[in-house]
């Protein structure tokens, strides 16, 4: 079993693949095309060419509801929770496709499971989601995505704007999830934190993959730093 992402024009012909039950992280500076790629996978962007397959099923022309039903959930950048709704309602909406599959019983179990992962959420069930702190909101966003029982979980910048402690906690949860058999694609700017949990990584620069390899290899590679902080001062024009 393998899932492939084919060539995508918007991000200049990227090809990559993710194996089941692994954590793959996509790192790179802002605007390097990581988020665009995730949006395309989820069906948010209709304009892409190339091929994308998930468990040998093409994702071409699928709209987000269908993508979610097929087992891919996205934790979007900026979380996109529903602030006026309660935490519980947010979670229940995450299970919208499950309810529609007439699997209301499993929803209850899932609810217990995700609140087991993030006990904070249980304490705040009835609060409007907008009143949560940033870290709690991020947890809620992940929990909400899990409610749809994804086989593949896509996370876009889960560490953005969060304290290191919370980032650590979230990364721990990702490892737990992987053990439960969920495949994870992690888009991160915080490369070190991401590479620590990931099995493999791809480094993006201006819309294409410039490096790929196992997490350990990448951690050791100096070029990773280059992708973020640029070549040394002066090298640039010398190269011209």
């Amino acid at each position, binding site marked *: 079993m393998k899932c492939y992402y084919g060539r995508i024009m918007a991000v200049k012909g990227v090809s990559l693949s993710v194996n089941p039950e692994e954590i793959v992280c996509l790192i790179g500076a802002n605007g390097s095309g990581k988020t665009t790629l995730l949006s395309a996978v989820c069906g*948010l962007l209709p304009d892409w060419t190339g091929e994308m397959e998930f468990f040998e099923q093409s994702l071409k022309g699928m*709209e987000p509801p269908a993508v979610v039903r097929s087992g891919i959930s996205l934790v979007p950048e900026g979380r*996109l*929770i*529903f602030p*006026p*709704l309660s935490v519980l309602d947010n979670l229940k909406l995450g299970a*919208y*496709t499950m309810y529609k599959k007439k699997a209301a019983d499993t929803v209850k179990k899932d609810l217990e499971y995700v609140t087991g992962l993030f006990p904070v959420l249980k304490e705040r069930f009835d609060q409007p989601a907008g009143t949560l702190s940033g870290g709690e909101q991020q947890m809620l966003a992940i929990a*909400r995505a899990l409610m749809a029982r994804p086989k593949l979980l896509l996370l876009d910048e889960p560490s953005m704007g969060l304290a290191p402690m919370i980032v650590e906690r979230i990364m721990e949860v990702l490892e737990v999830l992987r053990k439960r058999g969920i495949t994870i694609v992690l888009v991160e700017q915080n490369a070190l934190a991401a590479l620590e949990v990931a099995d493999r990584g791809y480094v993006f620069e201006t819309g294409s993959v410039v490096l790929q390899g196992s997490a350990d290899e990448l951690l050791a590679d100096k070029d990773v730093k280059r992708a973020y902080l640029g070549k040394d001062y002066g090298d640039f024009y010398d190269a011209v």
Partner: protein
Amino acid sequence: MQEILQYLFSGITNGAIYAVIAVGFSMLYSSTELINFAHGEFVMLGALSMVTLAAGFGWPLVPAFVLTVAAVGMAGLLFERLAIRPVRQPDHIVLIIITVGASIFLRGLGMLIWGKDAYSMQPFSDHPPIDVAGAKLLAQSIWILVIVMALTAGLHLFYRRTLTGKAMSACAVSKKAAWIVGIPTKWMVLLAFALATAMGAVAGAIIAPVTMSSYDMGTVLGLKGFCAAMLGGLGSLWGAILGGFLLGILEALGVGFVSSGLKDATAFVLLLLVLYVRPQGIIGSAEVKRF
């Protein structure tokens, strides 16, 4: 004192009607960011269907009411499918003109079906007016209030308790976020249309006994409802209810203490003041949107 009470009764009755119409506007706006200028015409369809079924065909009230609301809701559904969804460039001004076109079309249709005359029908119950400290409260007013309250409570429960209701509010909060979690937003929009127009039909059906219904009654009611929705805050259920009652009561007091000729002016001056001071409406908190 007795007069003030009487003004209040009058205001509350009208206000309740404005409120239901405003809820229709608000509901549609929160799901689609569209102002339906044909909404008043759906009120007209509701009123005239109710009169026809109840007074014309002599149906009992309940089935007549249910059929009216369901039929107009269906009309709203058709409206979305035929006139709103095919729009190639869903620019706000374009959508406004389409709904204006729809309002003219529906008015014309109403005239073809029911002719140019006005119709009236019996109140829901034949109870004499109730005397409260010398002021008279109509039985129909109580009916209207009860129905409006039941409806509000129902909507509140729908939004709070049912998955579909929650999904609709989620759509209203952020269409993208709703889409990501797998909520079929297009269906939600369709549902919003059906519900909003059904709301209009309810308004029409409950006022049919207190006033005269004719094919051209919709424009003014639509405008007042729009006004009320704006007053309370576009996109908020409670804002619409509050705006409706506020508008109705202030109009009645305006008649009582200012001048009956300036009654409508009272409403619009109030509206302008609210817009200038607090453009998001009394309850609304949504950011002021632009075209």
